């Protein structure tokens, strides 16, 4: 291709306009120049790559290797680990705890991601409409929730739902019996424990996680909204579109890339939620309420530790996340291409 438009490229190449006498050295210098300029990006990337390889790729590689071995503390302390092939994986796949954890993980992610995105978007739209003082107040309050350490948030929610002193049971007890009875099938809430069965526990977990993660969505959506020219909304209004239609026909299509990123991030976060679950479940004593992260942690770090098994669970979790994200991102990219 380039050959056919030779005239335009000719003046640029040093080698193609040789000057007598210095012909050889110029060519050599040019070649070296081209070599260095081709290498420069790699040299600049080098340090970063080394760090990523050291901190990310190597541990990942180790995890993959460990997932095929029987690794306890002795092996971590330097004794050679015995290879067990795919035994760890077959042990996981035949264990009831794994399937229960998988169900918990998926159900929680689906509910929590949906709620976080919907609530976050609504709050983002709200802030966009507010005046300066109010929007600042709302943003700051929301960001405070977001900035809280996971550990503290989970602990506070655990207290709110405490069976004896918790405000949740107190409120439920004060509500009319016919209401709580028909809705929740229970009228006496004194001493009701929220953290034993998966369903009530994950209900509290969802509250805690959504409460803390919607501010990020709200602020990101708000940033997106600010970039949409006001004329578009005006035009939509003139055409008779209400809030609902103007959202789906103007805001959503324009902010689609933003939502795509937020969705993928939320899925990743909610799939591997750990700290809050660990606090609410009170450690690793109750396998019924494990999700995959807590299950992996429990196997790898209980006493005596089974790090091979833990690694295998982590690999499965990673694989699931990869499949979901890759499939989703590909779909987004395709849609972008079509337009």
């Amino acid at each position, binding site marked *: 291709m380039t050959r056919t438009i030779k005239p335009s490229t000719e003046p640029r190449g040093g080698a193609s306009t040789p000057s007598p006498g210095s012909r050889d050295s110029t060519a050599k210098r040019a070649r070296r120049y081209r070599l260095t300029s081709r290498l420069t990006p790699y040299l600049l990337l080098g340090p970063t790559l080394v760090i990523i390889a050291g901190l990310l790729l190597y541990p990942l590689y180790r995890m993959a290797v460990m997932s095929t071995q029987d690794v306890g503390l002795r092996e971590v*302390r330097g*004794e050679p680990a015995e290879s067990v092939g795919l035994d760890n994986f077959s042990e996981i796949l035949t264990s009831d705890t794994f399937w229960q954890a998988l169900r918990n993980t998926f159900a929680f992610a689906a509910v929590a991601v949906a709620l976080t995105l919907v609530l976050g978007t609504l709050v983002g739209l709200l802030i966009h409409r507010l005046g300066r003082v109010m929007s600042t107040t709302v943003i700051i309050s929301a960001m405070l929730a977001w900035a809280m350490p996971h550990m503290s948030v989970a602990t506070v929610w655990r207290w709110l739902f405490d069976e004896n002193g918790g405000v949740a049971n107190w409120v439920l007890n004060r509500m009319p019996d016919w209401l709580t009875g028909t809705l929740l099938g229970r009228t006496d809430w004194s001493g009701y424990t929220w953290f034993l069965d998966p369903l009530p526990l994950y209900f509290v977990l969802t509250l805690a996680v959504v409460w803390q993660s919607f501010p990020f969505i709200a602020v990101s959506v708000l940033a997106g909204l600010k970039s949409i020219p006001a004329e578009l909304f005006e035009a939509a209004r003139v055409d008779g579109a209400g809030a609902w239609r103007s959202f789906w026909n103007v805001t959503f299509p324009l902010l689609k890339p933003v939502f795509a990123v937020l969705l993928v991030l939320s899925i990743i976060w909610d799939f591997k939620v750990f700290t809050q679950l660990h606090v609410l479940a009170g450690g*690793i*004593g109750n396998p019924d309420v494990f999700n995959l992260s807590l299950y992996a942690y429990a196997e790898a770090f209980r*006493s*005596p530790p089974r790090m091979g098994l833990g690694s295998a669970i982590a690999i499965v979790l990673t694989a699931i996340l990869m499949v979901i994200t890759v499939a989703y991102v590909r779909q987004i990219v395709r849609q972008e291409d079509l337009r």
Partner: protein
Amino acid sequence: MKFIKYAALSAGIALIATACGNGADDAANGNDEAPDEITVWRLGPPDDAHNEFMAQVGEEFEEQHGVAVDVEWVPWPDVDTKFQAAAAGGEGPDVTEIGNTQVVTWANQGVLADITDKVAEWDEGQEIPENLWENETIDDQTFAVPWLGGVRAVVYRADWFDELDIDVPTNWDELLDAAQTISENKDASGFEINGGSDAMHALAPFIWGNDGEIVVEDGDEWVSELDSPASREAVEWYTDLVTEHGVAPESAVTRDSVEISRLFANDQVGMFVDGAWAKSVITDANEDLDEEAISSFTLPARNGNSAPQFAGGNDLAVWADSEHHDLAFEYIQLLASKEKVTEYAPIAGLLPTYPELLADDEYLEDDWMGPFAAAMPLGKAYAVNENWVQVEDTVVQEMLRNIIRGEKSVEEATAEAAEQMDETLNR
């Protein structure tokens, strides 16, 4: 320019090389050279009395050996994590306290030093009775020293017993009567059951008190007896306290003894099973409860006499990665000497392992310690197996939860628990 780069590079390599070299030298020569300090890990939450005692022992050790002692406290729930991190990183203390059922786990992971020869040469230590070394000995090698013993008894509200005219129960029928009387009159749990991290220790005396077994050794294998008729009967009686008689709430299945102690301190519990250390937890939570209000009695077996209790204990061990094994054991000899044990056992709410001290009237005649001291000779152990801790952490809790919440019958739940136990122990 080039020269400087090469110089820097070779200097770096040289540094790394010497750094490695130093490490190797240290490890090889460590035992000859006395350190400035040894590190000791104690488990649990310290208070002033504990710290004072440890400081005093440390000073005495420094006078004898010219080596200071640095004491660090590790909270019980963090023990596993802390030990694992220290073992994996090759950095740990010189001496550590350790729960007696955990010795086999950590010894098998190569974390504790073999101290068989050192124990053989320790005169005073020969007086510790044979049966107390059971948890510490694996294939004839000794990995820890039994330091203080902890058996459980029933902790009860003596003032309520007086007020409601209840006598101290001597069998299970009387125990149930007492619990029902309290529940009816006090708006509190008559007898609180334990479903938390130490649920096994609260349940075990009931199984043994009904002539059942939890786990027995059969050749190379450990076999669970939880599904035997005697054990099932005991489990049924125990869970009926909640499901049938309502003298304990359903939410009890989430609570460990520390949480129960706090409820007890807040007038919400009349009786529960715990060790003698419970008293300080209770009085810390409510200073108004005095000698008159809290007391203890030995848990009876179903038809009278005393039920056997889990022989819990706090051991002392030498950390395998320590470079000063000899010095570490010197410190253990001091801390576990009769003199120090006599002084410290009452502070810790634990019992001495020396029969001579235990026979002393100071324990048996004491209103509070007496029932615990009386149960000490009836101490029993579980399986000496490295996976036992896992059974202790999850299996019984799940069984109790399933029965009390009505999800499984006693037969199903005990059968399942026995199966899990067999599988975990013989993995």
